[in-house]
């Protein structure tokens, strides 16, 4: 039970590292999608009594994060005719190393943080922290809009993982609302990316600096 959850968490952490290391946008999108799917399955593994609502939420997560958003992003990428984040603000190797360091730090931090007894053994907190960190790193370090959206996705995934700690206590209505909001946010972002691509003919955020001081 807990073993399966840890396995999935470990997988998600590994995927964030992969995301940090990859330069190709399609694979970045794929990694983010895969991570979304992994997370979507987590509640199914965790919950002892599978309520219908949990299943619905999990399925919705998998569909949105695993299918809809990647498709949207890939479309934008194709029209922009790019598939590589050529010159990131933080290089791939340094970001990979930073990500690894973040991972170690996350594990240490999770040890240090006061946790409930049932979470002491779980990787969930460490995974959440390291994923959030990776997401922020992508947001800070990459220059293509699509990479940043992926970073945002991964950041959200990390937060979602932390939310799983509370899944038993949070009303599902709230949970569902949060999920809906996040999804719509990513969706809207995807639309804006699409519009930007049309308006600027580029998804390089370094060109998106008309508005400046």
């Amino acid at each position, binding site marked *: 039970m807990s073993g399966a959850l840890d396995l999935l968490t470990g997988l998600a952490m590994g995927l964030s590292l992969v995301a940090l290391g990859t330069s190709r946008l399609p694979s970045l999108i794929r990694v983010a999608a895969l991570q979304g799917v992994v997370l979507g399955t987590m509640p199914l593994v965790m919950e002892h009594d599978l309520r219908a609502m949990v299943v619905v939420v999990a399925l919705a997560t998998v569909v949105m994060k695993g299918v809809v958003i990647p498709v949207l992003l890939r479309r934008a990428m194709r029209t922009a005719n790019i598939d590589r984040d050529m010159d990131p603000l933080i290089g791939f190797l340094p970001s990979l190393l930073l990500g690894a360091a973040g991972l170690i730090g996350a594990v240490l931090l999770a040890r240090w943080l006061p946790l409930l007894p049932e979470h002491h053994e779980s990787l969930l907190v460490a995974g959440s922290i390291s994923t959030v960190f990776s997401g922020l790193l992508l947001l800070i370090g990459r220059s293509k809009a699509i990479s940043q959206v992926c970073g945002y996705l991964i950041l959200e995934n990390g937060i979602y993982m*932390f939310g799983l700690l509370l899944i038993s206590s949070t009303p599902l209505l709230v949970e569902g*609302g949060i999920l809906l909001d996040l999804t719509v946010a990513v969706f809207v972002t995807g639309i*804006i990316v699409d519009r930007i691509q049309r308006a600027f003919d580029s998804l390089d955020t370094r060109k998106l600096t008309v*508005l400046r*001081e």
Partner: protein
Amino acid sequence: MKESLLILVPLVAAGAAALWPHDRTRPWFLPAAGLAHSLLALWLLVHPPGAPWHPWLGYDPLTRAVLPAVSLLFLVCAAYGVSYLRLRAERPNRVFVAAFLAALGLMSAAHMARHLGVLWIATEAVTLSSVPLLHFNNTPRAFEATWKYLLVGGTGIALSLLGSFCLGYASLHGGGAGDLTFAALAAQGAGLSRPWVLIAWVLLLVGYGTKMGLAPMHTWKPDAYGEAPGIVGAMLAGGVTTVAFTAILRVRAVVDAAGAGVVADRTLLAAGLFSMLVAALFLLSARDFKRMLAYSSVEHMGILSFGAALGGAGLWAAFFHVWNNSMTKGALFLSAGNIRRASGGRTIDEVGGMSVVTPRSSALFMTALFAVTACPPFGPFFSELLILRAAFSTAHGWSAAFMLVCLLLAFLGLSRVVFAVVYGRPPRAARDLGRRFKETLPVLVPPLVLLVLALWLGLATPDVLREAWSSAVGQLTSTP
């Protein structure tokens, strides 16, 4: 039950507007819903409901202390919006009107939220509903602004979600049920796990602080305010920031109940002072008169957090300042919008001498400048003075002195830009454009109304408001 209408009326109106077939008449949904909302909000201000309507949502004293300000601002902006949208007939307004109304409903919901999760959902929804408002102009600049608004704001709000979870975990760890209603959290009080409470506070402050526009998380503000239409800027500066501010206040009350109020106040104070400083520095060399307003907003958010950090009288004055900020910012944005359209320029290199081209809007802009820089007899003068007094009487003298220096720098920057815009010799292009722009009553009365409101708030603050602010202060500080 009535309070639920505050959310439902705008949302229903939004739906109706989305379905309404005629672009020409659709904008009238705005003032209609705004009027209903304002009347309701004011009625509830005078006759506060007894018990909260729902454990998650309710018109509690804190809502009562600030929501009517947002509602009034919306009403005025909506009235302005009718004539604005008529001028912008070339743009389809279906999405705009619907989103604007939805934003009002969601802002009401966020104000009324008594549950951390609901609060987050409503705030995020406000953010999302304002996206179509931001890129209404459909220019590349507008998309860029929207993009930054989404990503910076999104990251911030994601952090506040993490913070919300942490607060929930603090409850769990402290032996609670993980109930995220503020009442339950505050009731748990010292039973909350202190490290988690502190972590939650950091994340929530930064998260909602991003939404509020505290430095250094303010970076999206000038872009968004600079590119959005005037009414949207006014609503963002006077409404959405208020949502984030009340969110921080609610969280602070929980943190206070958990026994970490001193730490929270210290961070709030530091964030406030830092925001004032950063805003003042930006204002000093501002050239774009709409982006300038964003920095002025950052400055006032700093003042709000400073006031809130002082507690008691300072918090009371901060509520006062919320109202004043809404009114004066609204007046600034609307009059700046007139000038922007009449001049066709953004910066003081392109715009000048508008007192010749648009004398009335320029006078309003100038008056709003004096109002927003705390010149008597406008409201901000009184609220800032009360904040200063509170600071001096709670041994925060040096912070108050720092605030005064920032106020001076901000005044220098603001007045320099406004004088450059209003006085001097208008460029030829502006004169031609200006001749086409008519200063009709519908574009002049709304900012004037806001200024009169700011004046009235200052000179004769209604007792019901005073009482509302006092009870809000009581709600936030009386937790055991």
